[in-house]
């Protein structure tokens, strides 16, 4: 470190420039990580928070199941008999536009559930779904629009009137807040035509939510096919496209930062070649020079990542409410670790040249 630190001070302009690039990358990695956690949250937190292990959809539907699948409620009984399944409950989903009696218009995801089932959301306030006729529980996003317990929500076109009886946490689905409503009410909405609803409409749901011990022995029961909750995220609107795009951007960021660090230290090492030759002529082993250079790399990476990361975190914490942005410690720290480890790996490729510098070249141009 003796030489490493003095070089940092001596060539501080160059290292500051390089450090700023790494710091900006670290800040960007915090933002991207927050955005990607936020998108996941906005996209599927309503599903993630459900106490289900798997969902069984119409077996003939293999994509966008939450909007396209229709199953017979009778499949619940068949699933309850299936090996390993401890409980099953129907769930209906739909994305709708609605308006409150105060005239607030909003989009919402409807989750139709049977009262008393394990799909009941945890209440923050009020009563549970179905506590009164067409009584619904809303998540934070709708409450933020100024709608509260006792307010009436009217679903566009169909005109079904729902009364808010309770509120739950911040769950959302497909980037909109959730209205949990009695399955029967959902079935009427799903039937789509106001007025008399045929009794057959009351036999359908979107999926059967399953609780089970360990792996499911049989994934296909009564014309439905079960997929795990994690897999079902991909069945929700836009989820796969969003997460894979975010992942791609993050991979690019880490690759670019490794290349930038590698390129900088390649140039730096080439510039230092006469000095490295001198050190070796003075009796320094390659190991000594490499250790010193690596220490320098780590000081730069750790310092820049810490500063940039802190700045990114502060920026993220200041994000306005309602942005799909969630700071989670583990993904953010993983991002920092990747910048440091990949950066060090990039630099190591450059530093390896040190072992090839011949001390003989210290004798100068004449030699």
């Amino acid at each position: 470190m003796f030489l490493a630190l003095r070089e940092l001070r001596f060539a501080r302009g160059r290292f500051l420039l390089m450090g700023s690039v790494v710091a900006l990358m670290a800040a960007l990695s915090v933002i991207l990580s927050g955005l990607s956690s936020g998108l996941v949250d906005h996209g599927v937190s309503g599903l993630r928070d459900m106490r289900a292990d798997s969902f069984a959809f119409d077996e003939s539907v293999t994509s966008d199941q939450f909007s396209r699948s229709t199953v017979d409620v009778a499949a619940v009984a068949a699933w309850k008999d299936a090996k390993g399944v401890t409980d099953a409950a129907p769930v209906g989903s739909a994305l709708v536009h609605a308006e409150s009696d105060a005239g607030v218009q909003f989009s919402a995801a409807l989750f139709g559930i049977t009262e008393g089932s394990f799909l009941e959301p945890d209440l923050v306030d009020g009563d549970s779904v179905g506590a009164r006729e067409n009584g619904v529980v809303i998540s934070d996003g709708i409450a933020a629009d100024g709608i509260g317990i006792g307010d009436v929500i009217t679903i566009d076109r169909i005109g079904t009137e729902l009364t808010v009886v309770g509120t739950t946490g911040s769950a959302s689905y497909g980037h909109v807040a959730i209205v949990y409503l009695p399955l029967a009410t959902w079935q009427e909405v799903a039937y789509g035509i106001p007025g008399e609803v045929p009794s057959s409409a009351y036999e359908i749901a979107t999926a059967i939510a399953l609780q089970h011990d360990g792996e499911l022995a049989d994934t296909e029961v009564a014309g439905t096919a079960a997929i795990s909750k994690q897999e079902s995220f991909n069945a929700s609107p836009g989820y796969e496209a969003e997460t894979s795009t975010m992942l791609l951007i993050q991979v690019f960021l880490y690759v670019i930062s490794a290349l930038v660090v590698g390129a900088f230290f390649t140039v730096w090492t080439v510039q230092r070649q006469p000095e490295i030759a001198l050190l070796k002529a003075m009796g320094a082993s390659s190991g000594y020079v490499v250790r010193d250079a690596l220490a320098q790399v780590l000081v730069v990476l750790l310092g820049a990542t810490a500063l940039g990361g802190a700045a990114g975190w502060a920026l993220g914490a200041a994000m306005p409410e309602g942005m799909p942005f969630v700071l989670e410690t583990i993904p953010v720290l993983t991002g920092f670790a990747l910048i440091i480890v990949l950066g060090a790996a990039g630099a190591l490729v450059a530093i390896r040249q040190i072992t090839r510098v011949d001390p003989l070249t210290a004798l100068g141009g004449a030699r």
Partner: protein
Amino acid sequence: MTAALTLTDVTLTLPAGDETVTALDHVSLEVAKGELLAIVGPSGSGKSSLLAVAGALMPPTSGSVVVGGQELTGASRTRLSRIRGDLIGFVFQSTNLLPSLTARDQLLMVPHMASGIRAEHRAKADELLASVGMSHRADRRPAQLSGGERQRVGIARALMGDPQVLLVDEPTSALDHARADEVVALLAERAHATGTACVMVTHDLEVLTHTDRVLRMHDGVLGALPAAVLG
């Protein structure tokens, strides 16, 4: 007198395209402790090659090199690197100093590489800087020093590890006559004072007054200096 550096029948051939160049041709040499030996000779005659071989920077094609009682022939790279650190000091013509270090730190670098810096090393560095008249420049970096000052720091640095042999390549080529004379006088004084054997390659015949012995290199052959040259 015991020899600090002994070359016995050293030959060095270097590949140059399809042919080979004989840079050193059966060179034998003994340098005593505390002796300042100058080697003169035309460009390309093999002077730098001699320093490279004597300084464990390059193995000879044949012959033996003994520095401070240690045989270099057949030693591993790691051992050669250790021998350079323990027994040999270099003063190079260019890139003698590390641009990021102050004069004092140039000297402290030597114990840092070997073992770690202790209080006695700091005292010794200050002493050496004083002995080359550079105390008042101890906190300056090379860019803020004159060519002669740089050479003096380089000499102090080379002496920091208490070498048995000091190898100096053209220390005066960048200096005017007065400075050159000063630097070589300093080398002679230090060699005599510390008992370090010093081999100096030079083009500058004017500085030879300070040396104990002068040899001439010609086409890789080391021989006595014709009296006519010195005038």
